[in-house]
């Protein structure tokens, strides 16, 4: 049988040359559970990222070299720290998503919960994942990845936050499922009890030489939670394992990673690194536009879930805000115009000259700027937090293309939401204008204010076309930037806020640039 994972000579260096992993040789057999132990900074998470996010790492400047890295990515499943359950879905939704994309039957969600020792009631529709305890979340995460029919599970610190009893329950669960389903597992943990409980083999990511050393290679009795190991044996091994680990950390815990030569980067790569944030939104636009129709047809439910969430964030929640602001702006602009003629000038004559031109001219830009700050930031933050909490990584690990599942519907929903916001904004400005017109007894004010939008005179048609064009280009432009920056890697919380700020800046520049370009084109033609 082909090993689910075979790694030889894996070397990983940071962009500055520090070597985090300097030679990992690891082969995992079918039905085997391998535990990777190591201190903080030993490279455990880096090893996980090599398996799941190699491209992102390389893109970030990491040097990743391996003489052999045999991995069927489609068979690799992940249980991230704290489960990383999808919080836009309920408990059942998490399982159904995995089943749907793993070729399973969605009606088996209850059974999978029971399989990991959870009550079937948790599968009741509407049960939010935030109601779960840490242990329950971990087990749901395990159930989710098992339901996706992955053959190699990667469990990243699965016992974080669990009490000793729950750690043992989790260990037994892992062992049971591995045996039952014939899958293999890599468990990365600090937790000695969990490691001892589940490991067929134990490895230490050494801080001494940055290599992978097998512990107790010749005498490890196997997973201690398996039947046949008594409490005394388990206690003895726990002590010994902990002692070995502590001794290693005592000796090498403060040893910084060796520094090699900085990873050379070509000029092209440097340029690419600078240009990448500029290109990313366009790549998102092209990808999302391509994938959205497919996703809508193939997984309409998934599409609807994401789109609904995004519409809620970008349209429904701030809708009243937009309506109020636009009405005030519409009123203010026309009120100022009505006064600008000074003494002796009839305000209604000025209002008649203006008609709805101010709406046509201002609504796209003002609505876009407001949308970026309010709605765009909301979706940006949501996508960023999904990355930060490894939910996007979990998607990858379920074999779900985050671009199709997340980006495409989010992109389309943001774009459509903006278009609707632009319309709402225009209506708000018109409403504000109606109030001014009413004050001056301007007849047929509704027709007057909407004329430039609905039936523009020939010389003003170009302005209406410009407005429609701007709404179009702002819609997909803002959506692309929001999704690109929100969906970018979020290694830490600050990256989320950086992404939001960067998106507001970029979108504002996008808006201003198009305003200027279109104005020049319209008035020079």
């Amino acid at each position: 049988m082909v090993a689910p994972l075979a790694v030889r000579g894996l070397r990983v260096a940071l962009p500055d040359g520090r070597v985090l992993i300097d030679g990992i040789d690891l082969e995992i057999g079918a039905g085997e559970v391998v535990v990777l132990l190591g201190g903080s900074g030993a490279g455990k998470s880096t090893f996980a990222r090599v398996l799941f996010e190699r491209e992102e790492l390389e893109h970030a400047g990491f040097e990743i070299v391996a003489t052999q890295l045999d991995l069927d990515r489609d068979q690799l499943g992940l249980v991230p720290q704290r489960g990383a359950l999808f919080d836009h879905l309920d408990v059942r939704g998490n399982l159904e998503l995995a089943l749907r994309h793993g070729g399973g039957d969605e009606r088996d969600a209850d059974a999978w919960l029971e399989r990991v020792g959870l009550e079937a009631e948790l599968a009741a529709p509407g049960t939010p994942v935030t109601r779960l305890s840490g242990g329950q979340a971990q087990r749901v995460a395990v159930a989710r990845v098992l339901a996706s029919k992955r053959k190699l599970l990667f469990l990243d610190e699965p016992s974080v936050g669990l009490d000793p009893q729950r750690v043992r329950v989790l260990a037994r669960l892992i062992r049971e499922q591995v045996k039952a389903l014939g899958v293999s597992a890599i468990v990365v943990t600090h937790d000695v009890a969990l490691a001892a409980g589940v490991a067929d083999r134990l490895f230490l990511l050494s801080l001494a030489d940055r290599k992978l050393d097998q512990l107790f290679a010749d005498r490890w009795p196997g997973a201690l939670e398996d039947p046949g190991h008594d409490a005394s044996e388990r206690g003895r091994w726990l002590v010994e394992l902990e002692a070995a680990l502590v001794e290693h950390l005592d000796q090498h815990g403060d040893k910084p990673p060796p520094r090699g030569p900085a990873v050379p980067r070509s000029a092209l790569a440097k340029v690419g690194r600078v240009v990448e944030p500029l290109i990313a939104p366009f790549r998102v636009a092209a990808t999302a536009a391509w994938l959205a129709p497919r996703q809508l047809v193939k997984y309409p439910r998934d599409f609807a879930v994401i789109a609904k969430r995004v519409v809620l964030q970008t349209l429904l929640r701030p809708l009243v805000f937009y309506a109020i602001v636009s009405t005030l702006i519409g009123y203010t602009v026309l009120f100022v115009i009505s006064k600008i003629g000074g003494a002796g000038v009839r305000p209604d004559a000025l209002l008649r000259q203006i008609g709805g031109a101010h709406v046509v001219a201002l609504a796209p830009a003002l609505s876009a700027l407001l949308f970026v700050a309010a709605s765009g930031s909301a979706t940006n933050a949501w996508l960023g937090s999904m990355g930060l909490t490894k939910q996007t990584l979990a998607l990858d690990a379920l074999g779900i293309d985050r671009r199709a599942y997340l980006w495409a519907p989010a992109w389309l929903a943001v774009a459509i939401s903006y278009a609707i916001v632009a319309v709402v904004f225009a209506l708000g400005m018109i409403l504000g204008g109606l109030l001014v017109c009413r004050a001056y007894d301007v007849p047929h004010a509704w027709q007057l204010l909407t004329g430039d939008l609905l039936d523009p005179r020939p010389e003003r048609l170009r302005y209406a076309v410009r407005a429609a064009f701007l709404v179009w280009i702002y819609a997909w432009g803002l959506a692309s930037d929001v999704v690109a920056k929100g969906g970018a890697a979020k290694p830490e919380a600050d990256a989320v806020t950086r992404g939001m700020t960067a998106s507001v800046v970029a979108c504002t520049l996008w808006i201003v640039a198009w305003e200027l370009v279109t104005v020049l084109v319209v008035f020079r033609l």
Partner: protein
Amino acid sequence: MVALHALAFVALAGRSTGHDLVVTLPAGTVPDAIASRVIHTSEGRGPGLVRERWRVAYRGDYVREVGATQLVGPFQDPKAPACSGRVIVGQALLDQIAGEIRSVIDDQLRGETIFPVGAYHSIDAFALEWARFETHPLDAALLGTEGAPHGYVRATARIAFERVTVPIVLVAVPEKADTQLHFRVAASARVEVANGFLQWLNSKVDLTSKLATRLANRELSAMLVTALAPPPPFELAEGQTLAFTFCADPVEIADRAYGALPFAVAIGGAPGGVLPPHIATTHAPPPVPASLAIDLDADALNAMLYELWRTGWLDRRLAEVGLDRRFNTDPTVAEMLTVRLSPPRLALPPVITREGDHLRLAADGRVNLSDGGLTVGRVYGAVDLRLAAGLSPTVSLGALELACERAPTTLVPCYADLVGALATRAADFDGALTTSFGELLRDIFVDRELSAGDLPVSLRVTGVVPTLVGTGVHLDLNAKLVK
């Protein structure tokens, strides 16, 4: 992607010019793209200025409109001008004239002794009246074989002499030559004396003829001609005149009511063969005037306007009014607008038509619009005018429209909002014409004093009350004889 969008927008904006209203003359074709929403109307069917309009309405009460004006016939014939006006002399004025004539006769006969009736004492009961033969069949001998089918002036008097009082009857039959009016006069006197010898003697010396020749028939004729003749030519400028001529229709006389002389307005030819329209008018009997009245039907008014236009008088008047100067130097215009106007010139003669209870004066002009480039604008204005006493019209705007010539036969809407804003100032344009025309009417027909041959009196007209009659106006003049 950005570049593609930018290029796409340039292309899109370039195509998004909309389909403005463009009217190609003379067929009046409009672009197919907007043909379905163009409303084509025609105001008036002629004769006169026919205004065709092509209109597109946009939401918000914004309208784009192009209009073209055409002068439609039939037209008046300069070689045979139609009878479009008439001078109407009322019985009252004739009574005034009678008083003056009596004085003249009295002066002429005073101190005279005519054999055999003796010395002249006085002339009594001198009267002039408009008469028809039907009511005075005894005048047949006086009227002779030619008769007076359209009526005549009948004078009667009683002349007292030393020995006898002689009743006199005199008839003056108006007759027209080509360019002159004169009266054919005949008189009869019946001398009744008791003495048979004197009766015989009278028959021998033909006293009747003697009296008839002494009855100032020359003065009478001159006075009647003065009152009844067409208005004298009116000097415009540079030797140009507005002339009135006799026309083919006969004098109309109503028994003891009035005598009316039809006349025409003399018109000349204009470049391009433009002529004033001829509007068929049925002339009803005029209202009986207090003293003197003038009827001017639409043809007369339009012929006068035509002559004023043809001779350049109206353009000069417009230039004097300085519409362009007033517009260009208007503080609001000077400060806020880039468009400037040249002096307007009338492309066609203005035309007056009767519209219900008022007259409508329509004019089609050209003006150069300077706004970066130079564009020829076609201005059409119409004002509704109501004539008040003294011929001072009250004016209200009927229409003010502007279209621009993209080419001489291609019209496009232009400055629609500006024209709309200026609509309240339309009286500047047509009002100047109207006021000038009113003044002209007053100068020609009202403020005048006409002498009557060698008589020491003249006919002075000092006031007017205009009313609308038929297609034109009826001017009831306050006329009296003054010494």
